[in-house]
């Protein structure tokens, strides 16, 4: 069709006619990317450039001073920065691991096994996708207090383990695995746990990557838990510590360190997403709510 002018989705090659899309996409991408470029520059600025007026966007003489300051500084209560970072790393890895196990087991059961209240559970979870966590922070506080989790290390991990969106995505993904495959394994004598381990898990790697990212983001960037449930300074997280850098005391001197800290916060997010993005896109094909 010579004069076909309809949409060509997912084109193989660049064609000059695509300028129409790029003319919008590139400015949007610049606007979206600018603050991130800005953190990169700000984090490496020496003190002179931080105080410079008018402020420059790009760094002139990059240095690691801000990072050195950040690692050397101890908070007003005498806790070194490395402690916060250690807490964040430990909490994040444990939570991501646990939510993968919990989410994939539940997703498998909801998609492929029969048990009582399955329909109810699915229905409740689909409603819970639109659950706004911030709205019940007070009753949640009371529950956590009753469980004796205040000032406990586990309060960072346990309350975030049920992720309705994560379960939804995993379940949708498992739905497209043919039932025959599972029944064939049963005929071969596999029990449900073996099916989960040898058949399901290897097939749902993309969905696992997705739930890992969702869990990672919600924990790594979380300040609420440290803010509300933890009084013991040595159990607070890096994300929380970062907020104290600019809200208290000298903001200009803190700026360089805050930018360095933002960069430390941002890089793991970016790296993980870059590594897993193909898997995420794969999962998203099945994300539709019908």
């Amino acid at each position: 069709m010579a004069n076909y002018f309809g949409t060509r989705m997912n084109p193989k090659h660049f064609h000059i006619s695509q300028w129409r899309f790029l003319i919008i996409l590139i400015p949007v991408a610049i606007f979206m990317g600018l603050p991130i470029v800005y953190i990169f520059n700000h984090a490496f600025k020496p003190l002179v450039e931080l105080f410079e007026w008018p402020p420059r966007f790009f760094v002139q003489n990059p240095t690691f001073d801000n990072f050195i300051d950040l690692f050397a500084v101890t908070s007003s209560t005498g806790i070194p920065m490395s402690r916060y970072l250690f807490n964040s790393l430990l909490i994040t890895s444990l939570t991501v691991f646990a939510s993968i196990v919990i989410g994939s087991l539940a997703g498998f059961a909801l998609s492929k096994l029969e048990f009582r209240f399955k329909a109810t559970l699915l229905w409740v979870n689909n409603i819970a996708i639109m659950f706004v966590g911030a709205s019940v922070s007070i009753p949640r506080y009371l529950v956590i207090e009753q469980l004796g989790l205040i000032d406990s290390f586990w309060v960072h991990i346990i309350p975030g383990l049920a992720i309705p969106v994560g379960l939804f995505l995993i379940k949708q993904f498992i739905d497209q695995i043919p039932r025959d495959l599972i029944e064939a394994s049963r005929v071969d004598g596999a029990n449900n746990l073996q099916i989960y381990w040898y058949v399901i898990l290897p097939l749902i790697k993309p969905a696992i990557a997705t739930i890992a990212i969702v869990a990672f983001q919600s924990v790594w960037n979380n300040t609420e838990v440290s803010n509300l449930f933890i009084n013991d300074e040595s159990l607070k997280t890096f994300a929380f510590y970062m907020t104290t850098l600019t809200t208290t005391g000298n903001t200009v001197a803190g700026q360089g360190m805050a930018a360095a800290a933002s960069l430390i916060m941002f890089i793991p997010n970016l790296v993980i997403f870059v590594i897993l993005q193909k898997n995420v896109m794969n999962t998203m094909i099945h994300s539709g709510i019908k």
Partner: protein
Amino acid sequence: MDWNERMIRKLTLKKYKDGTTGALFVLPYVLAFLVFITIPVLMGMLLSFTYFNLLDAPRFIGFTNFISIFTSDSIFMQQIVPNTITFAVVVGPVGYLLGFFLAWLLAQIPHRLRTILTLVIYSPSLTAGVAMAVMWRIIFSGDEAGYLNAILLSLNLIDSPIQWLANPDYLMTIMIVVTLWSSMGIGFLAMLAGVLNINPELFEAAYVDGMTSKLQEIFYITIPSMKPQMLFGAVMSLVATFNAGSIGVLLSGQNPTPQNAGQLIVTHIDDYGFIRFDMGYAAALSIILLLMVYLFSKVAYRLFGEKD
């Protein structure tokens, strides 16, 4: 399938129908879900009918909290509700439409370029909240060293630095811009996957049948073919919008925000709950918020749902 296969299926189904393993597999999730989602919601409902200050036992007071929210909480009716509606109506639909539009554009460029641009557009949502609130605060800093002030001063557009974040006239706009900036999240990715997954023959067939414009194509082919992803995207942007409620407090660094300009229901709840310790009142506000989210999502389901 032949008789043999059917028998095998029947036998295996029977053997595994007991469902203990199924129930066992969902147990950890169900426990976490019950304790940290279901119980808090139910408790919120109960608490909303009480007066509770954390020190004394909750005292049942019927609908008093709800009545005072709507009749005597002048801040709520005059500022919080209009603020929340402005914020939600701009950030929700605009962010959503923008997400769809960007996904649609991205789908029409080659793979490598698309991956890079998608990453850049998605990256703000990776850091949503904290890291960014810190950076935005430096950009909008009220002294002349703030980036925006410095740029405007050097261009001679203003004479003296503007207190962006402390000024009620600007705070809401800044909140909306920052939230929109970080709103291209998981829903946006879902819509991108949805557009990419549409069968290309549909488009060709439509043009053979006499379709003439891109607009027709979007409304008659693209959106109907990706309704499930559109609905997922809508729900995600709805949740993100209401969860982003504390952005005003993060930006201005105070709760309540200056002259309540950036005060939304979420921050009003925190104000009553964690600052004034009126837990019953705060719980009543939460229930109103949850109902609002639920109603909005009903609208989304009406628009894009296939049944219901």
